C-alpha cells in the first residue's frame, strides 16, 4: 500500500530555475540598494528581467509535468493544494502586519498627530465613492470567477472562456480605478503614519490584484488550449483561491483604512 502510494508521487527533473530565481532576487535587492545611492536602475532592471524569465520557464515546466506528462496524480495534487493553502495563509499574515500597523497608530493617536484619527491635516477619501465602487468590482469578479469554475466543471468551454475573460477585465478595471485614486488623492505616502500605512497597505493589495489578473490570464490561455478537464483544473482553482483571499483583504481595508472625518 505504501509502495503504491509512493509510485504515484514523482521527483522533478533537475532545473536551473531555483538558481536563476535566486540570482534574480540578488540582483533586485542589491540593485534596489544601488539605485538609492547612485541613481542607476540597471542592476535592478536586469534582476526584474531575470525574474520574469524564471517565472515563465518554471511555470511552463510545471504545466509540462502536469498536463503533458501526467505527473499530477491525486496525491501530488493534494500536495499542491497544501502548498497553495500555506502560501495564501502566509500572505494573509503579511497583510495582517500592515493592518496592525494602521490600528497601532490610529487607535491611540499621539499628540504629534493632533491626538485624533484621522490625523490633523489629512483630507481622507470618501469611502462611499471610488473605494465602494472598487469593492463592488472585486465582489463582481468573485461572482464571475465562480461562474467560470462551474462552467469548467460542467465542460462548458465557451462559457468558461467568457466568464474568465470578464473576471480579468474586472481586475483591470479595479487597477485602473485604483491608479486614478492614487493620482487624485489629497495626501501622499510621505504624509505621516496615515499616508504610509494607507499607501503601503493598498499598494501591496493592488499589486496582488495585478498578480491575480496575470494568473487568470494564464488560466484563460490554458483553458483556450484545452489544458483543463472537468475534474482536473488545479491551476485555475489556485488562481481563484488566491484572488478570493485578495478580495477579502480589500474588504477588510475598506472597513478600516477608508475612514472619513465623521468616525
Amino acid at each position: 500500500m505504501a509502495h503504491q502510494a509512493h509510485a504515484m508521487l514523482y521527483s522533478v527533473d533537475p532545473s536551473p530555475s531555483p538558481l536563476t530565481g535566486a540570482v534574480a532576487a540578488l540582483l533586485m535587492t542589491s540593485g534596489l540598494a544601488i539605485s538609492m545611492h547612485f541613481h542607476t536602475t540597471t542592476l535592478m532592471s536586469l534582476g526584474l528581467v531575470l525574474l520574469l524569465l524564471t517565472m515563465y520557464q518554471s511555470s511552463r515546466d510545471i504545466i509540462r509535468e502536469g498536463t503533458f506528462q501526467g505527473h499530477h496524480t491525486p496525491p501530488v495534487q493534494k500536495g499542491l493544494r497544501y502548498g497553495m493553502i500555506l502560501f495564501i495563509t502566509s500572505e494573509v499574515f503579511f497583510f495582517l502586519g500592515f493592518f496592525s500597523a494602521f490600528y497601532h497608530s490610529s487607535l491611540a493617536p499621539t499628540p504629534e498627530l493632533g491626538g485624533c484619527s484621522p490625523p490633523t491635516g489629512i483630507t481622507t477619501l470618501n469611502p462611499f465613492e471610488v473605494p465602494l465602487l472598487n469593492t463592488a468590482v472585486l465582489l463582481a469578479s468573485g461572482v464571475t470567477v465562480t461562474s467560470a469554475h462551474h462552467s469548467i466543471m460542467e465542460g462548458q468551454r465557451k462559457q468558461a472562456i467568457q466568464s474568465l475573460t470578464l473576471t480579468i477585465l474586472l481586475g483591470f478595471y479595479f487597477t485602473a480605478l485604483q491608479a486614478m485614486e492614487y493620482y487624485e488623492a489629497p495626501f501622499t505616502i510621505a504624509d505621516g503614519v496615515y499616508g504610509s500605512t494607507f499607501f503601503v497597505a493598498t499598494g501591496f493589495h493592488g499589486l496582488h490584484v495585478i498578480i491575480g489578473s496575470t494568473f487568470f490570464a494564464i488560466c484563460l490561455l490554458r483553458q483556450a488550449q484545452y489544458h483543463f478537464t472537468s475534474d482536473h483544473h488545479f491551476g485555475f482553482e489556485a488562481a481563484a483561491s488566491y484572488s478570493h483571499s485578495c478580495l477579502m483583504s480589500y474588504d477588510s481595508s475598506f472597513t478600516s483604512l477608508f475612514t472619513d472625518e465623521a468616525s
Partner: protein
Amino acid sequence: MFRTMNAVQQMARRSICSSARRQVENKVPQKQKVFQEDNGMPVHLKGGSSDALLYRATMALTVLGVGFTLYELVKASFPQKKD
C-alpha cells in the same frame, strides 16, 4: 477621415468574424506525445531548440548578473573621490 474610419470598421468586422470561425485546435495529445518521449531530456529542455535558446539566454544573464552585482558592490564599498 470617414473613409479611413469605414475601412477600419470593415477590417475589424472581418477579423472578428474570421477569428470566430477559426477554432483553437486541441493540441494537448500532440504535446503529450512530445513530452513523454523517452529521450532522457530534462523537462526544461524537452520542448526543442527554443527551450535551449531561452535556457542559454537566461543562464548568460544569470552569470553576467552575478558578476555585475559583485562589481557594483565592490565599487560602492570604496570611497568615491568627491570633485
